């Protein structure tokens, strides 16, 4: 059993929860942070009882950029790894008509992530250890009519994570970019997602955990997504723009 801590930002999502449980199973203590901490308190009891690890529950708001430095400064003990799992999916039809929504989507998915990760990266760089897991999206790999505001914010995050990986390479800190593809969660219940392309949260947690152990740079939760995105990225624009994707 390790005495190390993992900080999970946006710990309320099903995928974050599953990943945190996987790390707890391996003996890591868990710091859960999110805007709504009520549910996190329930999850904390589960983590303590089931895995016998220690937990902390912390309020964190991705959009309160000014609070990020203090949030991390007050964090004790400092974690060995970060799972950044917050994000905002938005609704394309609504968001494209309203710049305040566009801003909120970008700020949650990109600016909020960059803001807190800069604080953490500085610390990890100085300590010369640690790992960072950022949850991006396949939606960021190519703009599509159905979700390009969310997609472009995630594209920004993917590029950001790639750059951070480059910078931290010499410090022994790995940055893992997760592009989940379809994951069956509370929010997707009722959508008819194709079985072969859809992972359960538990499977997602396992993939993320293993990718961290192996110090991977990029992981799609279902490997088939690597091939799907390869095709989508390379489709000529004059064909792509006629699709309904």
């Amino acid at each position, binding site marked *: 059993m390790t005495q190390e801590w993992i900080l999970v930002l946006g710990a309320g999502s099903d995928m974050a929860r599953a990943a945190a449980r996987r790390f707890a199973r391996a003996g890591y203590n868990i710091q859960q942070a999110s805007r709504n901490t009520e549910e996190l308190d329930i999850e904390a*009891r*589960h983590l303590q*009882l089931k895995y016998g690890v220690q937990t902390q529950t912390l309020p964190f708001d991705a959009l309160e950029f000014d609070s990020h430095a203090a949030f991390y400064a007050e964090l004790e003990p400092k974690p060995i790894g970060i799972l950044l799992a917050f994000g905002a999916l938005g609704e394309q039809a609504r968001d494209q008509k309203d710049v305040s929504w566009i801003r909120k989507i970008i700020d949650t998915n990109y600016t909020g992530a960059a803001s807190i990760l800069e604080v953490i990266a500085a610390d990890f760089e100085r300590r010369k250890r640690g790992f960072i897991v950022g949850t991006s999206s396949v939606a960021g790999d190519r703009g599509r009519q159905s979700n390009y505001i969310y997609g472009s914010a995630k594209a920004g995050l993917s590029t950001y994570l790639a750059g951070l990986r480059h910078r931290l390479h010499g410090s022994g800190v790995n940055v893992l970019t997760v592009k989940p593809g379809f994951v069956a969660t*509370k*929010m997707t*219940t*009722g959508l008819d997602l194709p079985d072969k392309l859809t992972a359960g949260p538990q499977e997602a947690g396992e993939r993320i955990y293993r990718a961290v152990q192996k110090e991977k740079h990029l992981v799609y939760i279902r490997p088939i997504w690597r091939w799907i995105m390869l095709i989508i990225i390379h489709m000529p624009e004059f064909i792509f723009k006629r699709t309904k994707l």
Partner: protein
Amino acid sequence: MQLTGWGRYPIIEASPVTFQDHRSLAARLAETKPLIPYGNGRSYGDSALSSRFVPMRSRDRLLAFDPDSGLLTCEAGVLLSEIIETFLPSGWFLKVTPGTRLITVGGAVAADVHGKNHHQAGCFGDTVESLLLMLADGRIRRCSRKENPELFHATCGGMGLTGVILQVEFYLQPVPSAIIEQATIKTRNLKETFEAFEKYADWPYSVAWIDCLARGAALGRSLLMLGRFAPIGELDYAPRRTKTIPCNFPGFLLKSYSVRAFNSVYYARARSGISLNFVDIDAFFYPLDAISNWNRIYGGSGFVQYQFILPKKHSYTGLEQVLRKIMKTGKGSFLAVLKLYGPANDNYLSFPMEGYSLALDFKIEPGLFALLEQLDEIVLKHKGRLYLAKDARMSRDTFEGGYPQAEAFRSLRTSLGLAGAFNSLQSQRLGL
């Protein structure tokens, strides 16, 4: 999306009512009526089916455990398998478990499930200390035998019709090992089977596989399986790897001659008299969980499990009549399960009563429902009833005849404003 129970009949179009926390659940209940909570989809028929359903599986947190008393508190969506994986290595096991570990705790309460030890340990509800229930208006009530006792007894066995079960507090039992000492007793007819059940009633676990297509003097021949925890042994537990049935089996595999052949071989395989061996928990309690979707062997149109119970006094004659009727039609099943039960509890709609129960699988085919109606008549004539967690087709009259507290259950629902809020296809069919 399409929603169905374990029997894959009926299949309906339904949409989920999802929620993040108790506050949002209360809001969803206020705006959506009627609906029904849905756990892991292991009830066979239509008791968890409704065009609006509340998926409960993500409420899967263990909350507290007292190693002095064995009292466990958890959310309603926790699977029994999770409890076994977590607590068996430290010597704790469920006091009551049905034949699958892939059900939620909420479902276990709602169907007031029972297991092979019913004659000694009663139903799942009998192991429950208290539960938290959200009513239609979003209020949360704690229910126990002392606090809101009527609601408690209506909720245990109430098929999700009294509200959304949020949390359950119930007792586990200490066990000395994760190994079961098993005895198999081969009987030649129904009379011998009954005698063997009575003779070995001091064994905590007992169940009989009955050859429902045996004829004449062999009618009711069975393999009675008894079990108890081995007094010493390892507590290690890892769930078995599951196999998958790749597709729906074609219908010819379930013609009467193939079922008869299977049953004969299964019966012949056991040595005569009594044999003893040691098996692990999964093999003893959950043999079917080893095949992750065994419900597909009944083909694409699905199946129903017909499970009835008869009071002891009428069990022999009633069972004989049912078995003769089935034998004549040749619509037998691979898995016919007979069991002796202990006394009934105080819950309004619980299935068990002191007597014998028989469970049979039938694939859906023309003529089946007519046969089942004839069986209903035999069951009612012998003062018996059918199990709601298995049912997809019984008539309101059959239900009323078997459940004397149905009317009291209805009144309670009406008085608490639950009648229009929580409904399943089953509750609508039965006028609950």
